[in-house]
Each structure stands twice: as structure tokens, then as C-alpha cells.
């Protein structure tokens, strides 16, 4: 039954994709050559003006270009033109760095907040104010104070991924079942041991949910941040191709951003499955 359901879902998916591609292809067909244009003038004009070609590329254009990129993902033609593989590696590197710093700060701090009602109350107003700020709003401030654009991008990743982790960790730690903590207390388990052997395993699923939300946000933000600061990364690639009004390359980049985002999410989903426990 499940296999047939899966099969049927796959068929529906493929049909949907085919319908979408077909509609896309038809919508972007050229409307035929424009009339009365002197050949000398036409030579100086683009395809959109002369052939009535749609400004949007069709699926075939995108496919051909994608193949071109996939054939040589790691070329390096100088500081402003690198292959997609290199650009993605830069972006992932930045995300990882900012994210790991966020993990290193958010989880211990979250523990503290979760275990101590006093600190929780004291820090609450700050967290409430800082949490809803759009990460990109930090960008000018970061550029101004850090004085380094790639560090600024990492800072922005850090600041956007720290809140979901912090809040989830605090919540997870605070909602560990009282009985378990009381048992630990009767057995006279020390504070550190209690944190690592009782609270951490119990709060792990909630913490990982926070981490999973964070990685998603971090990946969303890196593209925007790189479009702002430029230099390297997939966001810069989008901006550079946008500069050239090359919608084909922009669509390819969008596709790749989606794929990488999915992979990152699935990785953390795997990890969180490892730590879940039945109650």
C-alpha cells in the first residue's frame, strides 16, 4: 500500500513538473521577428528587441546553461568570475562559520537561561527586542564597526541564527520533567553532571529543532548578505548575473540555492532523529 502511494505521489510530482515546464516553455516562446527594422540597426540590438524573444528564458535555455555550469563547476577566471562550485563553497563556508559561533554561544547561554529563572527574567527584555530585528538591518552597523565585509557577513549569519537556538535551548532545558531533576537531586548529582547526563539528553530534541530552524534562516540570509557585500559566494553570483540581466543564470542560482538549503535541512533532520527518544 505504502509503495503504491509513494509511486502514485511520484507520478503526480512528475506530471506537475511536466505541466509547469510546458507552460513555461509556451509562455516564453518568441513572437517572431519585429517588422521594419533596418539590418544595420538590428545588428546593434539584442534578441529581445529584434526577435521578439521574451525577456524570460525558456526551460531549454536554462537547461543548456545549467549543463554548461555543471560541466565545469570549479573554474576561476579571476577575482570576479568563479565557477558555481567555488561560489557555493564560499557561501557554505560563511554559513558554517557564523552558525558554529552561534551554536557555541546560544547553547551554553540557553542552558543558563533555562536553568536559572533569575537570568531568564533578566535577559528576557533584551532577547525580545533583539530577536525580531531583520538580520540585514545589522549589515550597515556591522560594516561600519567590524570594517571587513566578509566578517560582517559572518556576523550577520551569527546574529540571525543565534535566536532560534537560544530560545529553543532555554525552552527545552526549562521544560525537562521535574521528576527527572528531582531524582537526580535525591541521588546528589552535581550541577555539571546533572546538566550533561540528565538535562542535555532530555532537551536535545528541542535544541536540535532550534538548530534546524537556524540553519534554514542562515542559508536564507547568506544570499541577501552576499548580494549586499559582493565579492564571492552564491549571492554575489546572483547579483553579478542580475547586473548582466542574465535571468537564465539567476534561475540556475535559485535552483541551486534551493537544493543546498534542502540538503542542509535534511542533514540536521537526520541528526535530530538520532537524539529523539520515546517517552
Amino acid at each position, binding site marked *: 500500500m505504502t509503495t503504491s502511494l509513494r509511486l502514485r505521489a511520484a507520478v503526480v510530482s512528475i506530471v506537475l513538473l511536466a505541466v509547469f515546464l510546458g507552460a513555461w516553455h509556451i509562455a516564453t516562446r518568441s513572437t517572431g521577428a519585429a517588422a*521594419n*527594422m*533596418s539590418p*544595420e*540597426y538590428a*545588428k*546593434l*540590438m*539584442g534578441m*529581445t*528587441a529584434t526577435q521578439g524573444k521574451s*525577456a524570460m528564458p525558456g526551460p531549454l535555455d536554462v537547461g543548456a546553461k545549467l549543463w554548461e555550469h555543471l560541466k565545469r563547476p570549479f573554474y576561476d*577566471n*579571476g*577575482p*570576479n*568570475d568563479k565557477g558555481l562550485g567555488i561560489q557555493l563553497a564560499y557561501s557554505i563556508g560563511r554559513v558554517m562559520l557564523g552558525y558554529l559561533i552561534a551554536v557555541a554561544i546560544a547553547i551554553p547561554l540557553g542552558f543558563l537561561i533555562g536553568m536559572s529563572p533569575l537570568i531568564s527574567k533578566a535577559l528576557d527584555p533584551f532577547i525580545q527586542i533583539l530577536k525580531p530585528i531583520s538580520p540585514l538591518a545589522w549589515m*550597515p552597523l556591522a*560594516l*561600519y564597526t567590524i*570594517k*571587513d*565585509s566578509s566578517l560582517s557577513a559572518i556576523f550577520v549569519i551569527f546574529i540571525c541564527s543565534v535566536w532560534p537556538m537560544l530560545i529553543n535551548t532555554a525552552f527545552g532545558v526549562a521544560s525537562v520533567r521535574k521528576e527527572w531533576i528531582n531524582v537526580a537531586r535525591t541521588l546528589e548529582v552535581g550541577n555539571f553532571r546533572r546538566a550533561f547526563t540528565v538535562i542535555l539528553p532530555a532537551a536535545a530534541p528541542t535544541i536540535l529543532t532550534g538548530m534546524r530552524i537556524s540553519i534554514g534562516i542562515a542559508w536564507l540570509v547568506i544570499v541577501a548578505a552576499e*548580494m*549586499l*557585500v*559582493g*565579492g564571492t559566494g552564491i549571492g*554575489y553570483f546572483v*547579483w*553579478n*548575473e*542580475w*547586473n*548582466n*540581466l542574465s535571468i537564465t543564470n539567476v534561475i540556475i542560482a535559485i535552483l541551486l540555492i534551493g537544493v543546498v538549503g534542502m540538503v542542509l535541512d535534511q542533514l540536521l533532520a537526520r541528526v535530530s532523529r538520532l537524539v529523539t527518544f520515546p517517552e
Partner: protein
Amino acid sequence: MSIFDDPFDADSRVNAGCICGQHRSPAEHEHATLALRCEPVVASQEKRYENVVASAVLRAVFPEVTTRRAFLKSVGAATALAAVSQFFPLKTATEAFAEAGTPEKKDLKVGFIPITCATPIIMAAPLGFYAKAGLNVEVVKTAGWAVIRDKTINKEYDAAHMLAPMPIAISLGLGAQPIPFTVPAIENINGQGIVLSMKHKDKRDPKDWKGMKFAIPFDYSMHNYLLRYYLAEHGIDPDTDVQLRSVPPPEMVANLRADNIDGFLAPDNICQRAIYDGVGYLHILSKEIWDGHPCCSFAASREFITSAPNSFAALTRAIVDATAYASKAENRKQIAEAIAPANYINAPVTVLEQVLTGTYADGLGGVKTDPKRVDFDPFPWQSFAVWMLTQMKRWGQIKGDVDYKAVAEQIYLATDTRKVMTDMGLAPPKDSYKSFSVMGKSFDPTKPDDYVASFKIKKAS
């Protein structure tokens, strides 16, 4: 006008025959004032340096002008050169001269915005002008004017491509905290245009433009001042009758297509790109507003100059050299091909070629030719800076009194550039101020306050 004083030209007159003293006849002066540009006569740099050295030697041997000329006349330039080189190793001296001071810092980063205004900065990398000056320069594409400003202030870039008014704005602390910046060289003159959406095909009279939305690249840009000037001359108050929006150049074409704006005054390759994509047409070129106006500049902080004077001089030499190369029409096709790839401007070669060669489609079905559509002249006239300051004051960007001259002289390094150009064997203008006319109204750099007061439409201060 020639950027070379040929030391072996026996016919050159001792006293130049024009007002400014740098041209041989009033006619030539006239021509030069019209063209405002340097035209390299000798192609190679080595040859030029050789001339400078030879000239110095010859002058040392015959300090008297009349004797020198008599000698040249009697034996001919070729023989004179041969004679001089016999007892003086010209080649060695030339090499020693060309090397100048060793740069303190060889690996430099220079930021640019991908538009044709940056041509000299960009092409100097693929065509080897930086390497010739003994530098290893990485040219880095940057997302927008504010970012390029911040990155240069942060010292991520050693120098950068900036809009000509930006170093003035930064130094005065407009829109940023004041940091002394300098302009050793202007990048390009002309090379901008007003493009309107195809739906306004018949609205060629600016008087009909009330209520329209225009895009400009940045508040502190020649584009802003020129568009405001143009509109105001036609009786349109740019602050109340139309909307001016600051939009990054690459987004202008897309915005025009989406009908978010009615037109823009933008740097080139963007104008031509809108035409190429059939989105807009060229209303006028910016040279029809002010022929020979500066647009973008090559800027560096004063701190960079003091901490690495030799690197700065080498960089200026490379830029001046590239600018001189770009000013020659026959090199333009090669330049278009060199700067078109994704690593640099990232635009179709046809578009860049149309901009640089000046044979272009106007978007209305005609092919036009104007070889001066964009031109390159490195000399940072201080009167340009004074004009920009008058416009900043006119439109309320500067409040209160300005010491026009002091600001212009601190930022536009005419004196230093003149020295570099002279050392390179070019003949820069002797004055740092000149008057010019914008839409038929002449500008006197010595009376900036009267100039500001003379405009009917301006922001009340």
C-alpha cells in the same frame, strides 16, 4: 594639443601663441578647450620616457633655448638624438627613470562598479597597465556606491572607482563621517545619457515630464546634478515636479521594464543596455548638457597617499596611462572586448562596443555616430570640483558657507597629477581651473557664489 613636448622639434616656439600658454596657436588652444583631452602621439610608454630623458639631457647640454634650436635646425633631430646618445647612455637612463620609486605595497585592491565609466581602472588589469607600473592589482567588482565607499573607508580597498562628487561628499562628511579623500585622476568625461521608457516616445519636450519618476545612481553623483540642471533649465523643479530615486544602475533597466520609473539619467552601458533590450530609447547624451563633463573619478584616501606614496604614484601612473590609451578611438574595440567578460563588466560585447566606439542604436530605429559619446581625460580640474560644490549648495546638500577653492584644492589633486603626468612625458594643462559652459550658461570658477545665486530654480536654504 599633444601630451608630449617633443624636444627634437626645432619648429616649436619658445613662447606659445595662446592665452593659456600651452598651445602653439590660438586655434589649437580653441580645439583643445573643445576637446578637453589628451591625445597620445607616441604609442609606447618607453618611447615617451626616452623623450623625457633625452629632452632633459639635451637641455642640460644646451641650456640656451636659441642655441639648442640652432643646433637642432642645423643637424636635424635624428642626428641630434644619435649624437646625444653617443656620450650619454639614454637607454639606461630611461630605464632608471621609468622605475621611479619602489612601491611600498605591491599587492593592491581596487574596487569598481561595473559600468563603462570604470574602463581605465578595469582595462588596466587585463591589458597590463598595472603590471607595467610594477604593481599587482586585483580589481574587485562591488555592489553599489555606498558599499564601495564603506569598503574604501575600511581600507579593504586601497583605492576605488567613485562618482566624481563622492570624494568631496566623504571629505565634507555628507552621508558619512568626514574622512579626507582625494581624486588623483578623473576617469571619464561624457558617457552618460537620459533614457526614457518606450511609452514616452513622443514626450521629447522636458516641459511635459511633470509627475514622472526618474532614477539616478546616487545622491552625490554628476547624474543627479546634471539631471536636476537639465530639468530646471526647462522649468521643471526637480524637487517638487518630478520624483528622483536613487537606484543602483543594474536595476534601472529592470525597473524601466517593470514600469516603476519613466526614465533615468544613468552611466553608460546601462543606457545602451536598455536600448539593446528594447525597453527604452535615448533622449539625449549627457554631452548635450555639458560637453566634457566629468563623471567618475579614481579616488584614494589621504591616508593611503601618506602611508604608501610610491604605490600611490605608481597607481596614478597606471591609471593615467590606461586613460591615455582609452582616449584613442582605434583602441576602443579592443578595450570593449577586454572588459566585457563576467570577471569585469559582464555585459554583451555589442553593447560595450556601441558605447565606446560611439556608433550606436538610439532605440527609435536610427543608428547614430558620435565618437565623443564617452571620452577619457585624467586631469582632475579643480574647477570641476567647484562646480559640483555649487550644485551641492544649490540643491541643499551643503548648508551654510563653503570655501569652494580650499575644498577643491584639497581633494582634486591637480598639482600632484600634473607632476606625475609631466614625469611620464605627458603635457598636462598648466592651470587647475578653467571655465566651461553647461547648457550654454558659462561657469566662472572664481565666482561660485554668484553662480549659485543666478539660478531661478533651487532649493531654498
